[in-house]
């Protein structure tokens, strides 16, 4: 599916640029796109080192085990494949904690660590299993407790009460996350039936 979406985005851009006369801008975008991806990875490289290093300390000290026990009653329902205290479950819980705290820079490296654990025990390495899909769907929804970045942006643009939107963000997030999980669960059953 990613193949179609990716090709669709690029082909559609080419046609639009032709129609709107923005072909020069489009060719600039090809160059800048490649360069900005590399820049992003360099920024991410530092963050990856910091947070996977800290994750390893938290793991060695037993902190991740504590967290995964705390989250287990909920996580058990979402990720039935991974037993309590398993490496995959601990990594998933660290990623969820980082997301809740709004540590976006930490959530990505910790999420990648969790994906590695999940793929290590997966039978088909090139295919996402139901638990991986659930994990990525949860990570594509926002579960941050306090949207600090949003508040800061609103304050910069002269909002009288930059954080007055927080209850609305919670409501919208919960509804979106709930429906995302439900969609993942419903589609997963259909996949199983199709074999």
């Amino acid at each position: 599916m990613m193949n179609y979406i990716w090709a669709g985005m690029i082909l559609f851009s080419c046609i639009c640029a032709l129609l709107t006369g923005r072909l020069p801008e489009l060719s600039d975008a090809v160059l800048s796109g490649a360069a900005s991806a590399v820049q992003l990875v360099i920024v991410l490289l530092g963050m990856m080192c910091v947070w996977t290093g800290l994750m390893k300390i938290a793991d060695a000290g037993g902190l991740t085990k504590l967290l995964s026990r705390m989250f287990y009653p909920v996580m058990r329902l979402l990720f039935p494949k991974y037993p309590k205290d398993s490496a995959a479950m601990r990594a998933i819980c660290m990623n969820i904690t980082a997301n809740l705290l709004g540590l976006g820079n930490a959530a990505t490296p910790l999420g990648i660590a969790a994906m590695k654990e999940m793929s290590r025990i997966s039978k088909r390495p090139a295919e996402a299993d139901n638990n991986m899909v659930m994990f990525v769907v949860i990570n594509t929804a926002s579960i941050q407790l306090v949207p600090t970045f949003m508040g800061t942006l609103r304050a910069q643009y002269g909002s009288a009460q930059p954080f007055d939107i927080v209850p609305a963000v919670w409501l919208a997030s919960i509804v979106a996350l709930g429906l995302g999980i439900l969609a993942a669960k419903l589609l997963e059953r259909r996949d199983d039936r199709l074999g």
Partner: protein
Amino acid sequence: MADLGSVVVPATIFFILIFGFLRKVPVFDVFVSGAREGAVSCFDILPSLVGLILAVNMLSASGALDLVSSFLRPAALALGLPPEVMPLALMRPVSGSGSNALLLQLFRDYGPDSFVGRVASVMNGSTETTFYAIAVYFGAVGIKKTRHTIPAALTADLVGYIASVWAVRLLFL
């Protein structure tokens, strides 16, 4: 409250280190070995990121976003979304920096405390950059078949947008 963001990171690192120290973990050695693993997996995601960012940059440079937004105007109105936030709704799943730029444009044009400003804030705050997460997480472990990930994640995004308008109406009007 706005300073909360600058407290969370140091507090988390402090807490992890103290905890490790009390449990007699050789913290620096363990940190270095973990950081090495992080550095390796970072290069695994480079190819899929180059592909995704290329496509996103081409989309925004070609004017496709405005074209699709005007095309989808009736759909936005039918769903109760203010048409002004349509470009943001389309950009949000693919690019974080792109959607932040559009959000700030809306803040400049309408003000953060206007209806449009509030809906845009809630939309941006209650969703994530879906395709970035999919590219990074599946790219890191070399997964090619994403199965039902994209339909489920996009369902969450669409529901999030509709719920944003609904929540702002409920709490502010």
